């Protein structure tokens, strides 16, 4: 949670749950702040992170899971996580209430290279809950909008009711600072938006491949198809960045649980440029 934690990276610090919000069935956003007043008062302990990084979130008595921060890095003193219930710990996280205490270790891992993208057009492609780790990067792009060229968010999900951060999507679209396009795999007649896979949103879109960089997060197969579609449009593999997900234990490249070919996702990732991992995408066993 703080740089000082690096001296004791396996030591969780307590945080208090401030607020919970159901995004959809089985998916909850938690806002937390340091439970220890000393942590809260310490400027270095103000829950700093870079967009794309993750924390190990500890439910006492159950276990830890790696969760990317989904909130704004410019809001000091608190952290936001969005969790899908897919196992024992994440189910418990989705059931926590304000006032409960959790443990945190981190932040860990690599970040979206938002500073390095200054001056470029940026395409953010998200699938399902993959929008959560990208949201801090989107906040950064919006806050420093004048530093970037055209910015587009292309978001695909299963159904209209599985859209996460719907108020944000509406706000970003209405503010018109970035181009927001949403597609679902299937929709009923109340859905007036696009239907189809997320790569469909690239079709017909003006894109200068030499200027364009992309940030991708979602299911691995979605990132693979999206990266290939971008590459087919001339975007260099080195300008495409993906966030990988693997089960983890230590978060500090000691246990090897998250090994991904020659990499440890906890430390070499989760954000990789596609040219570094493209060869691994084709290996089913990795």
């Amino acid at each position, binding site marked *: 949670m703080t740089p000082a934690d690096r001296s004791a990276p396996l030591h969780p610090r307590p945080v208090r749950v401030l607020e919970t919000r159901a995004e959809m069935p089985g998916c909850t956003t938690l806002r937390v702040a340091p439970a220890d007043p000393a942590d809260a008062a310490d400027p270095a302990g103000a829950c700093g992170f870079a967009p794309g990084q993750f924390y190990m979130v500890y439910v006492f008595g159950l*276990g830890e899971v790696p969760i990317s921060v989904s909130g704004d890095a410019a809001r000091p003193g608190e952290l936001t996580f969005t969790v899908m219930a897919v196992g024992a710990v994440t189910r418990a996280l989705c059931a926590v209430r304000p006032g409960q205490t959790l443990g945190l270790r981190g932040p860990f891992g690599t970040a979206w290279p938002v500073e390095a993208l200054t001056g470029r057009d940026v395409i953010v492609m998200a699938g399902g809950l993959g929008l959560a780790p990208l949201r801090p990067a989107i906040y950064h792009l919006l806050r420093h909008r004048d530093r970037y060229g055209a910015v587009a968010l292309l978001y695909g999900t299963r159904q209209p009711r599985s859209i996460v951060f719907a108020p944000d999507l509406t706000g970003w679209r209405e503010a018109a600072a970035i181009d927001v396009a949403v597609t679902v795999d299937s929709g009923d007649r109340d859905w007036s938006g696009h239907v189809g896979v997320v790569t469909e949103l690239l079709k*017909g879109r003006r894109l200068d491949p030499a200027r364009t960089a992309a940030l991708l997060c979602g299911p691995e197969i979605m990132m693979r198809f999206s990266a290939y579609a971008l590459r087919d449009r001339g975007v260099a593999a080195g300008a495409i960045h993906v966030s990988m997900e693997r089960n983890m234990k230590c978060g500090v490249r000691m246990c090897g649980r998250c090994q991904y070919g020659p990499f440890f996702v906890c430390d070499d990732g989760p954000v990789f440029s596609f040219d570094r991992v493209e060869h691994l995408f084709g290996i089913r066993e990795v």
Partner: protein
Amino acid sequence: MVSIKPIRTLLAENPFFAGLSDDQFETMSGCGTIVHFKAGAFLLREGGAADTFYLIRNGVVAIESSSPAGGPLSVARVGAGGIAGYSWLFPPYRNAFDALAISHVSAVALDGACLRGKAEADHELGYQLMKRFAQVMLDRLQATRRQMLDVYGNVRTTDDTG
């Protein structure tokens, strides 16, 4: 004053038909009419005779199917420049899905039987059409297969049992 473009011009403006010759546009335009649909109107009905396909000029068309339990479900949307309807190309010439206008739609309706006849008489035209429709159908098939993968539904399960 609103200028009304001839069918031939509308066909030539669509990237789908890029590369066809003037003669081929002239031949095809004889099979076309300009049509308009209010929101909520069907362009095509599932199981109905596939005697027409539509080149969408404006508006959005939902490609749908219905189930008794789930009601109508949209599996694709076709917007300006897109094509609605492929079944006119192949026997038994029956529409496989509904095509519903979800906004006001302007389109060029092309008579499938008319076009099939002209393609039979002019195999070069037939080849050019089949080449273009095959590409669009391949794109649609691949997109459909990716939708079927349900990638967002198959969330990685964690071993987060402590």
